[in-house]
């Protein structure tokens, strides 16, 4: 079992690293998009799957990352990724700390409503502060460079995305398999009992919230230059928050890799179905309904269940 897993991961790594950049610009773009959504869905799952908190406002952190990069470009003329991304991460860390301090005092539907309301607040700000954010037109991103080298094609930028993805996955996996990761799962299962194990619930929820926000922000920061454009509807909308939740549930929130699989399935389905018919959200809605009824643990959750049944 271990060996099979290793072989699968290794071959996936080779495909992503060597083959994808030569599959044509559109496929490379789509995979880059799926990788970034994968980071965002993984980050959301730190809250949903591991902490038992459903955020319906995670586009706020994704958009926070995207806008901090875009605003630095527009207003300060900074185009170096090595400056933009770290500044974006720091901004999102502060943002998620502030939002987290408000939200983690509550759980269940109250937590969900708070995340939704606060993200809507920022969506409205991005729309209305036209002189700073460009309103609904957003901000165009024309170029980006890395240590003085100007990145000129999608297949070059793809490697920036891939590196970000690998680093994020490794860091998140390490965090979730650590004593901290176990502690937040205990809080998810019984947030009253953990107090009698000497654990301060709010502190750990806040840490999980910030970790989740930061990695959503990282995905958002890298997203802008890929799309070439940052707008409220693309990066801050409630629709995107919902899509992150959908990806996570589609892939399966009970496993670590589920959200990545969900992000890939979602991105490709959306691209292909919306190029064939205009009613993507009709198909998407039906898909989610079917999924929740037939496979509540998502694609990966279902696969694991079947493999256990077949005796792997």
């Amino acid at each position: 079992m271990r060996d099979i897993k290793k072989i699968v991961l290794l071959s996936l790594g080779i495909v992503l690293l060597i083959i994808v950049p030569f599959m044509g610009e559109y496929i490379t773009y789509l995979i880059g998009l799926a990788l970034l959504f994968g980071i965002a869905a993984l980050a959301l799952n730190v809250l949903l799957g591991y902490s038992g908190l459903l955020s319906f406002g995670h586009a706020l952190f994704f958009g926070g990352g995207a806008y901090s990069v875009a605003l630095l470009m527009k207003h300060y003329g900074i185009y170096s990724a090595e400056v933009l991304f770290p500044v974006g991460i720091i901004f999102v860390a502060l943002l998620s700390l502030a939002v987290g301090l408000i939200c983690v005092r509550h759980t269940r539907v109250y937590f969900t409503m708070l995340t939704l309301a606060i993200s809507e607040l920022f969506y409205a700000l991005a729309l209305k502060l036209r002189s700073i954010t460009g309103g609904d037109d957003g901000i165009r991103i024309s170029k980006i460079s890395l240590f003085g080298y100007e990145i000129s094609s999608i297949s070059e930028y793809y490697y920036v995305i891939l590196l970000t993805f690998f680093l994020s996955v490794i860091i998140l996996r390490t965090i979730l398999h650590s004593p901290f990761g176990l502690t937040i799962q205990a809080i998810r299962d019984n947030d009253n009992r953990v107090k009698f194990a000497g654990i301060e619930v709010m502190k750990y929820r806040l840490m999980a919230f910030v970790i989740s926000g930061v990695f959503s922000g990282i995905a958002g920061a890298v997203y802008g230059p890929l799309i070439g454009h940052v707008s409220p509807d693309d990066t801050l909308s409630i629709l995107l928050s919902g899509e992150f939740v959908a990806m996570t549930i589609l892939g399966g929130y009970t496993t670590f890799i589920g959200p990545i699989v969900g992000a890939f399935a979602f991105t490709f389905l959306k691209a292909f179905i919306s190029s064939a018919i205009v009613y993507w959200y009709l198909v998407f809605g039906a898909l989610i309904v079917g999924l929740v009824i037939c496979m509540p643990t998502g694609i990966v959750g279902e696969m694991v269940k079947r493999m256990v049944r077949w005796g792997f």
Partner: protein
Amino acid sequence: MGLLKVENLKKYFGEVHAVDDITMAIEGGELVSVVGPNGSGKTTLVNLISGALIPDSGRIFFENKEITKLPPHRRVKLGIARSFQIPYIYENLTSLDNIMVSIFSRNGFSNVFYKDSKKYEMVRDEAINLLEIFGIPIKVARELPHGHRKLLDVAMALSLKPKLVLLDEPTAGISIEERDEVINTIVGVLRSQKIAAIVVEHDMEVVAEHSDRIVVMNDGKVLKEGGKEILDNEEVRKILIGD
């Protein structure tokens, strides 16, 4: 010097005087049983000492430090742990992880963001050892039978290596055949690690055999206090067994 001191503790729920002016003290390593009919305030007393409830009036001291209004997690850090009447465990985690959460917390590892394999193995070994002492298999907690769930709850409290542990009916729901073995195991750990305990119990034989002292409660008050001979007191028998 007493380990725990409770002074004039009161907790009312509307008309119900759950705990009504209780004063008591417990020495280090002492095993005290609290008995009494249903609704006599035993569990409320445990809730007040562990911090699950804050008293209406009165004060609680632990090692001469006032803890009356301290939140539960801070009391744990001082050395007070508890188990629950109905197993209160992390259902989706394995029995091993249930224990490890407590040991990580005790060692201050809970906010470590990576798996230090040496420390991790140490904690794991300690947890496995404790599971073996209690005869609990390593399994997802929700799949364990009631007896094991109950023991896991107690083991989670003891893995914190407290100075004082509050055990709320540790043998409730455990079959009569297994009860002796379970209580012997628990008392064995308490005695060997010199952990003081307040044990809320129904089973009179268990109480009589192992306690250093027995406290009989009725209507939120301490009715009698003393050695096992007080269980023969007529007034006590009337309350506990009924007339």
